[in-house]
């Protein structure tokens, strides 16, 4: 890490309600933490990481990710259209029969269930 000292554009003041010395101490704390945390030549390591990331990018993982993202919206829209069409079809079909079904049952296309049909063990009729 470069050993140059950062210069702040203004001296800490007490305008925020915190004493100028505390603000100064906070700045010194961050400078000291940074000096001790960052390894030497960070620019070089950043450039190496960027180069490696760009290679991965070209390799195709990012391309697949972008493709999936780009297809997400059209697929969701098409799916919603199909669901709406099916719901409308079910509703329209159920409206013409004489069973007393709720709107949810009509939209979902559920068979009318009665006590008699529940005890009817003839599965072929369903």
């Amino acid at each position, binding site marked *: 890490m470069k050993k140059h000292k950062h210069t702040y554009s203004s001296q800490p003041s007490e305008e925020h309600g915190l004493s100028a010395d505390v603000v100064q101490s906070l700045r010194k704390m961050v400078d000291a933490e*940074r000096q*001790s*945390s960052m390894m030497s030549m960070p620019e070089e390591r*950043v450039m190496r990481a960027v180069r490696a990331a760009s290679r991965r990018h070209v390799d195709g993982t990012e391309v697949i990710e972008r493709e999936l993202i780009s297809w997400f919206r059209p697929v969701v829209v098409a799916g919603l259209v199909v669901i709406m069409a099916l719901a409308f079809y079910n509703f329209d079909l159920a409206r013409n029969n004489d069973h007393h079904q709720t709107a949810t049952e009509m939209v979902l296309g559920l068979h009318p269930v009665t006590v008699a049909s529940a005890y009817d063990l003839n599965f072929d009729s369903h």
Partner: protein
Amino acid sequence: MSVATTIAYPLTYPLSFADREVRTVSRVDATSTEEQLIIATLDGNEDAFRRIVERYIDEVSRTVTGMLGAGPEIDDVVQEVFIKLHRSLHTFRGEASLKTFVVRMAINKSLDALRKRKRMRWLQPWSNEDPWEPPADDRSDRGLTSKEEMAALRHAVDKLPESQRAVVVLRLIEDYSTEETARILGVPYGTVLSRLKRGVEKLKKDIGNTPDAHLSGGDS
């Protein structure tokens, strides 16, 4: 593939640097402007991006350190910020400065790292990991704040909620103006002021409660 790429970036603005016709910058030097460096980088000039890194690594590393505190992850987060910058330079519209754009990424990546840290703590409650400490020689006083004072300050900053911490780091520690802080965080001016007020109150209270209470008196 080109069609898919167009769909993938529907929000890329027509006036972004990537679309400008003045893409003639191939050589860059220390005097190159921000715009020249961006255009050259988009043209594949690695030296231009290196200059951007050199220009902003100081701001990015201090912002990330302010948010996260000392630790081995600082280096990784700083690298992630610049990788993201390299990938998203084409979306830079030039309305705010590149510095604002980069520092915003640094704040976002720091917040990601903080959430990851929380998740790790939750997933590994049995972990008996000692808190990271810098090497002894690097921590020597340099005539600055003492080790105990620094620990007390860091503890107080770490206790701040994320939104207040970001404002305190940018406004107080990094010395950005209230307008710049609002622009970086993408929040209204008044929100910055209220978060700063609440953050400072909490800091004062926490610093006052530590054994190094003389900090609040300011003898550093």
